């Protein structure tokens, strides 16, 4: 940092008054260029620069008295910062984050003219549901109008709520994951005493079948690839309420007596109808029974809901013509369906389970 001091401008000069600066901080000056004018007692004198350089700062302002030898101007030593322009200001920026282009995602577009799109919006038609008949797969105005009409005929769209919504979600998840296989059989229950409790017989038959073939009373964690055989049998009981399907769990059916089970089942059903089943009672089934035969139907491929691996379906017990000891007979027959997750359960295990189930029911 070079400093330029006020020189001795006249004999015996001790100090001088700054009259006016001719330069600014930041200016480039050359040797002999007038820096400022000062007043001595004799005259106003210009003070020239002793050397060339860039002025870092000025000392004093107009009117100040400066002593001879005191600093007037400080010169810059350092390298210049190149402005890099002759007009304006080019800002120096921070390094920007990597700016790599990304490939565009290819979504399958709907081919619709804007005016037709607006019509669909106005008529509240979901374009995804409209069948396109225009050339190249475009959705025409007529297509939208047709869809609107059929939707009107169909009645208002109601969003799924509550139990229906839960069912839709659960079934979709199950379908996405499970590899379902169904095996069926029939049980001859004609020898049952009158008034035999069908549901209870099914419950104990399932318990017996699980004891015989434990592989169907299990939980499968597909993400971890782990199967857990469960000792306790907690039987999910599908109940059809007016509003939808609900599956409360009858706990520990393998060890409770029939009376206790019946009472539990009745209470469960009443609570289900009253919609007062607490959420804990809907969880943790190890196997499920769908006694759809109470309404109607024979055999069914049912939905295995993970982490369970099996579901038993009982159809309507009804008289059927069957061969018996070489003769045609009419006997009361209970149709049985067993759907199992073939990722985890073998056909043999399922067949053995079904045989055990049938045997117990035919006692």
């Amino acid at each position, binding site marked *: 940092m070079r400093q330029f001091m006020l020189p001795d401008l006249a004999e015996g000069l001790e100090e001088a008054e700054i*009259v*006016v*600066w*001719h*330069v*600014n*901080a*930041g*200016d*480039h000056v*050359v*040797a*002999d*260029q*007038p820096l400022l*004018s000062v*007043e001595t007692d*004799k*005259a*106003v004198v*210009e003070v020239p620069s002793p050397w*060339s350089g*860039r002025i870092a700062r000025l000392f004093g302002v*107009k009117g100040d008295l400066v002593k001879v030898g005191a600093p007037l101007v400080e010169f810059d030593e350092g390298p*210049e910062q*190149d*402005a890099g*322009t*002759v*007009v*304006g*200001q080019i800002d120096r920026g921070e390094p920007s984050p990597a700016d790599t282009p990304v490939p565009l995602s290819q979504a399958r577009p709907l081919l619709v003219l804007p005016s037709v799109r607006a019509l669909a919006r106005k008529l509240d038609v979901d374009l995804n549901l409209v069948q396109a008949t225009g050339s190249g797969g475009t959705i025409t105005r007529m297509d939208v109008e047709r869809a609107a009409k059929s939707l009107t005929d169909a009645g208002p769209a109601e969003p799924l709520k509550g139990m229906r919504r839960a069912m839709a979600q659960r079934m979709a998840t199950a379908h996405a994951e499970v590899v379902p296989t169904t095996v069926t059989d029939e049980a001859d229950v004609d020898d049952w005493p009158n008034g035999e409790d069908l549901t209870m017989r099914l419950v104990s038959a399932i318990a017996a079948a699980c004891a015989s073939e434990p592989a169907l009373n299990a939980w499968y964690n597909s993400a971890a690839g782990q199967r857990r055989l469960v000792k306790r049998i907690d039987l999910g009981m599908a109940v059809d309420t007016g509003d939808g399907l609900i599956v409360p769990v009858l706990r520990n059916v393998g060890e409770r007596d029939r009376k206790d089970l019946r009472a539990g089942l009745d209470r469960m059903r009443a609570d289900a109808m009253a919609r007062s089943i607490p959420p804990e009672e809907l969880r943790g089934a190890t196997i499920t029974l769908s006694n759809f035969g109470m309404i109607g139907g024979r055999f069914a491929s049912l939905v295995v809901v993970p982490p369970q691996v099996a579901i038993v379906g009982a159809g309507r017990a009804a008289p059927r013509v069957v061969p018996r000891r070489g003769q045609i007979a009419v006997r009361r027959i209970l149709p049985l369906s067993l759907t199992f997750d073939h990722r985890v359960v073998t056909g043999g295990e399922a067949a053995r389970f079904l045989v055990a189930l049938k045997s117990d029911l035919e006692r």
Partner: protein
Amino acid sequence: MTDQPQTDEDLPVIARFEVRRRAYLAPDSTVLGSLPRFAADTNLLIALYRAMVLARTFDLKAVSLQRTGRLGTYAVALGQEGVAIGVASAMLADDVLLPSYRDNAAFLWRGMKMEELLLFWGGDERGNLSSGPAHDFPCCIPVGSQAPHAVGVAYAFKLRRQPRVAVCLFGDGATSKGDVWEAMNFAGVWRLPVVFVANNNQWAISVPLGLQTASATLAQKAIAAGFSGEQVDGNDVIAVRAAAEKAIAAARGGEGPSFIEAVTYRLGDHTTADDAARYRAPEEVQAHWKEEPIARLRTYLVSQKAWGKSEEEQLAAECQERVEAGVARYLAMGTRAPETMFDHLYAELPNAYRGQRDEIKRAFHA
């Protein structure tokens, strides 16, 4: 009949030219020959001196404002004050000035206010609503493109038989531009009342005169256009004034155009964003400081006992005060609402663009 073959020396000369150089005060302020008559009027010389000092004070303050973020890019005329002041002082109010972007001293002489100049260089078009003559052109950034305007203006004077003159200022770089040649050529054909003044400060940003032209003088370019050119010591404001007076009078009198080359030196950077030390040696600049116009006239005035210490002090104080006052008025001016960018786009804003103006207005005032 002779056997000797002709040499080129025997060919008849069909054109010669001459360029004269005008100067009255030497760099050391001694008088060369005799001064023009107006120079006997010390009041006039003092007026020229005061105007140059004011212009320089204004320039330096403008630089200071730029460095402190209160003005945009600015081009000082350090060392060339004599050219603009000498020329402008020879013009009548009714004449038309067509300047470059380094002629603020001429604007100030002709009545433009400091705050108007600062407003323009501070980035607001309102600055060009000059208090100077309404017919003067604003500064011209595309170099030399004001020359065709000057001959258009001069043509209008001639067509209407008006005793008015167009005065066109540009730099040495501009004389390389086609626009300037085309304008000069036209002025010569039609003998228009226009004066071309080249402020030859010897630098076009970083390109020195030697790379700009091989012509020995800029003045002789006029001869190719069919009129006379004169070189003048641009640091001698008396010479500049004399040359300008003569040229303007000739134009006004119907004698057609002329060209003045005022030789000076650009003591400052090209603009506040430029660093001239990148391309020229400090020693060269230092040497030219010894020739600068303000010191030259001051020394002469002092030698004539027409100027002294107290006058100098007083002038410095006065210039500071006037400049500070102008700056204060400038700094007090606000910025206009953004929808004003559509003002004066056409005489009347077409329907097609009203929506855009409304959009910017809504966004700003929301």
